[in-house]
């Protein structure tokens, strides 16, 4: 524990700026992964334990896309679409069979896929740590703000996540597809009785979750190293995010993600060995005080 360092940091503008930006970076990535997790839960009432693996797949597809095309933007899009396609197939072929059965079977199918995907990544991309490196477009001198140093890529990442979040909001609130998704989340039997193909809705929701996780993985690739099994820690963190925000609530995922990002960034200065513990304490506090989460509906 190093409270003096923490105190020193929060009283210096440059440190506050640096830590807040790195907290936001963690936050926006967690939001993208957590939003998919919470959407899938909202509609299908299953927790997709493979969501971290989808993030991993996105990172590796992004790496390959970048090496093939040399364009980071193209690589991110390819990764997002690739993972979305995979998620839709995964839902239709495997997950579909375990809805409504006991949790044990859902857990086992996910457990199997975490193992399989980790090994597939090992076979295709190799077991060693890999990194994409910073694309040349972002190799500009960092922006100075209030004495704090902000890499250009961080600004891009926050901007890109904001655009994706807006797109997601538009999709869910303003389009027919969003209406159907929300209806299916609310009452699947009624939605199906109204002549809506709920199977298609389920697959689309999985695809949307996969798209977000894939985009997050590829967007994070320049600043995070990759290794098989990398998805697991982000799975746990994004779960914490969705519990804090309220399962099923996309807005809650955003609030929870930013909160966790800030806790991580400042906690790493004050309690370097206890950062994970801090996140869990935040989650435990929410679970005890408001079990449905900050923005969750009271139902479960």
């Amino acid at each position, binding site marked *: 524990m190093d409270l003096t360092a923490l105190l020193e940091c929060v009283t210096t503008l440059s440190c506050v700026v640096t830590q807040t930006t790195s907290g936001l970076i963690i936050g926006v990535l967690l939001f993208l992964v957590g939003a998919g997790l919470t959407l899938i839960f909202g509609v299908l*009432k*299953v*927790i997709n*334990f493979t969501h971290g693996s989808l993030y991993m797949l996105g990172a590796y597809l992004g790496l390959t896309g970048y090496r093939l095309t040399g364009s980071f933007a193209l690589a991110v899009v390819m990764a997002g679409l690739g993972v979305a396609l995979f998620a839709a197939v995964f839902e239709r072929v*495997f997950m579909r*069979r*375990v809805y409504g059965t*006991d*949790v*044990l*079977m*859902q*857990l*086992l*199918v996910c*457990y*199997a*896929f*975490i*193992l*399989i995907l*980790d*090994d*597939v990544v*090992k*076979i295709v991309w190799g077991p060693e740590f890999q990194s994409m490196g910073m694309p040349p477009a972002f190799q500009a001198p960092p922006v100075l703000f209030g004495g704090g140093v902000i890499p250009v890529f961080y600004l891009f990442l926050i901007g890109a996540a904001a655009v994706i979040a807006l797109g997601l909001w538009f999709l869910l609130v303003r389009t027919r597809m969003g209406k159907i998704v929300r209806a299916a989340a609310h009452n699947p039997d009624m939605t199906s009785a109204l002549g809506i193909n709920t199977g298609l809705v389920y697959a689309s929701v999985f695809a949307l979750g996969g798209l977000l996780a894939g985009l997050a993985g590829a967007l994070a690739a320049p600043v995070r190293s990759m290794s098989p099994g990398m998805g*697991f*820690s982000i799975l*746990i963190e994004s*779960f*914490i995010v969705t*519990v804090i925000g309220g*399962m099923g609530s996309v807005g809650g995922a955003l609030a929870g993600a930013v909160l966790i990002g800030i806790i991580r960034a400042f906690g790493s200065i004050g309690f370097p*060995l206890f950062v*994970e*513990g801090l996140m*869990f304490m935040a*989650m*435990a506090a929410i*679970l*005890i005080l408001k*079990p449905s989460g900050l923005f969750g509906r009271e139902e*479960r």
Partner: protein
Amino acid sequence: MSGASGQRISAPGSLGRDLALAGGALLVLLVLPLIFPSKVLLDYIIRVAAFGIFATSLNMLVGFGGMVSFGHGMFFGGGAYAFGLMMQKLGVSIPVAFAGGMVYCALLALVVGAICIRLKETFFSFLTLAFQMLLHSIIISWVSLTGGDQGLMGGIPRPPFLGINLANQLHLYSFSCVLLVASLLLMRHILQTPFGYTLRMVRDNPDRARFLGIDIARIRLTAFVMAGCFGGVGGILMSLFVSGAYPEFAYWSTSGEAVFMIMMGGIHLFLGPIVGAAVFMALNDVITRFTEYHGLALGITVLIFALVFRRGLTDFVAQLRGGARAKP
């Protein structure tokens, strides 16, 4: 076997039969090294004992309590580390450290359980998983105490007690067999007491249990603590076997393996998880010999069981014997 509820709910008065079965099994296990003096076989049985106790304790939650924990590995790892650290740092005797490890797991289960049992089904699964990963990350980052990702340094001392020297393979084997049979008998007995039947009722119909004035949270928490305690016994036995404790013990894959063991063995029979543990260990050894892509092979096996067979091995046996399929 009669009725739809199957063999699992045998008459409460069957303690005598259980004792006789346990005694017979123990006798066979203890005579085994005289007939097959194979080191490999004995090592295999020791590992099956460790994971068998561990999986059976998980099945107290999954099969009998309807609480699908995905974080049971925290007790496997927690028990192993608590035991190992007590042996290394405090220099106590093995029985004292053994009891200490169990107490540690009980306390851990009490704290984690108090938070987790508030949640239902898949949330409960995920939350237990999350707490397990917290323990894992503490083990990894608290290097000065735990040795970090290298595991407990320097091995766990195994001083003889009561004439038992656990550094000797035959002694460790006999110890494991006694421990396995005693733990199973104890867990079986717990599940046959009124508490065990209350737990089943809470699983099948929590609302009715609540109407009858049963404190559901308390029953669930009690089950969680007991399962954690026995899970710790499995971990302690494993740490005695490898003379060390490693962060992998507390990793999520340990929990996944245990969940698969009980599913593969069958959650409907008390002894299903033991069958699952034995088959899993054999399967594991075969897979590791033939491929380095262990996860891929294991994952496909899990998928076949979960999506094609949709039931455990002992369920097939029960079906062949003409019984109606037991309710999960």
